[in-house]
């Protein structure tokens, strides 16, 4: 039997690791987590804005796995179960004391320095030459546009657009039909386009 190069622990398939973890083998449980946790963290990080929130989701997912492992039916794939938990936790996650400040392109800026000017003018003006600042600003607006989506729309959009999952796979994760996933994706796209109209034009 080959060994994991870091832990020296034998390389086992998911089922064997689950059986060992159920028996209280913490090394097996850790190996099982580390096989998938980067993906879980990536999904969480693209779904929420802050890394603290992503860590909260990550922790909640694996605590649920830890508590539920004894009841997990080995007939199904561990990864399917895990990603279903991940999507559920994302959907029910409440951001950690975060204030949602939806700024619009017509939002007034410069409250601090007393010089009021519009954000879209700022972007059109001299700062346009500063590509980095502009790029940061666009990213922020994309993030804010995503925040107006419903949790399911945002999750489907994130999983398809940024994580590259197929619609069929997302349907399995969310335990719904592929048609429903399409609807979430199209609605999300329509709302995002509307919200980002200023940049797209």
């Amino acid at each position: 039997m080959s060994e994991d190069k870091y832990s020296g622990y034998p390389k086992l398939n998911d089922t064997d690791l689950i059986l060992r973890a159920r028996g209280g083998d913490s090394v097996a449980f850790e190996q099982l987590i580390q096989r998938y946790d980067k993906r879980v963290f990536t999904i969480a990080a693209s779904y929420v804005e802050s890394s603290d929130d992503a860590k909260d989701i990550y922790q909640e997912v694996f605590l649920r796995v830890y508590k539920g492992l004894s009841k997990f039916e080995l007939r199904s794939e561990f990864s399917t179960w895990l990603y279903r938990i991940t999507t559920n936790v994302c959907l029910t996650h409440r951001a950690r004391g975060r204030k949602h400040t939806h700024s619009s392109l017509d939002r007034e800026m410069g409250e601090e320095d007393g010089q009021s000017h519009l954000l879209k003018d700022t972007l059109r003006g001299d700062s346009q030459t500063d590509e980095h600042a502009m790029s940061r600003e666009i990213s922020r607006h994309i993030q804010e546009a995503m925040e107006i989506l419903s949790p399911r729309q945002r999750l489907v959009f994130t999983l398809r657009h940024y994580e590259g999952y197929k619609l069929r796979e997302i349907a399995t994760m969310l335990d719904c039909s592929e048609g429903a996933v399409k609807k979430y994706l199209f609605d999300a796209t329509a709302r995002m386009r509307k919200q980002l109209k200023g940049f797209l034009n």
Partner: protein
Amino acid sequence: MNHEQFREWLHLAFYNELGEEEQSLLGKHLSTCAECRSEQAELTKFHKVLATHAPAPITEEDLREARTELRVAIRLQASKQSWLQGASDVVSEFFAPKYKLAFAGAALVLVGIAVGYVAFRSPTTDEPGIFQQSSPLMQTSLNHGDAQIANLRFASQNEATDQIEFTFDAITPVRVKGNVGDDRVQKILARALVNEQNPGVRLKAVSTIGDQQLQPADKEVKAALIATLKYDENRGVRKEAMKVLEKFMPDTEVTAAFVYVLQHEKNTGMKIAAINSLNLSKYHEYEKDEKLMDVLREKVRSDENNYIRLRAKAALQEARQ
């Protein structure tokens, strides 16, 4: 095929969700439909903007921190479960005393067989599978009877071949002698900090780590200290972790951890220690830290402690100047 269907396909085409035939039909439709071509151009712009502004990939550091915090959370969960298990055992014993002796006897026999099998059976080379995950040090300890055996679990038994498979936790004392500043010693202490059940041992581990001049590169040690400060259930251990973490300042992650304490900690003494440890007079341009500013505003508004409200207010006033 109607126009709406092609519009849907147009969206799906951007996600490579169309089959070859659908792709070809869509191509033909696009050559004749100006409205769909215009929609295609708009969607191209949309996807281009999003592709060039994708969220930043996760960092190894964030992942490491998340793993460390998870270990602490699982330790807490395990201790909760063992407490519940203990309570449930007491209840079971109370309700089923007549099975108690029989069960204990059976369990003892099983453990006896297994321990005897492990401790007294001479290792042979014709069974490479035995001690699959134990180190040579552990095997020696087992053969000499130094290791404590616990949580014996039978995985399988083949009566025809007399083959048996089981797992157990073998706890063997390991003596380490080295400089407390040694990187490996520090990492062992950091691991103990995260995994150890006994708060006294965790406290000792933190203070031993703190006795040293920590290197900024000790990321694992720092992550363990931060997780301890944020999540350890024992206030004394959290307080000690905060004292040690001050040595890392100025540091973005440690600052974030102090802000977390200021925001979430219920104990007033800990909050006061956090606002003092932040040492805002030395924190260059702290007014740009949005999270910190939000927490300070919230403290001014609603913290029940006068000192914290005053400190937060002073910090905000200084930031405005």
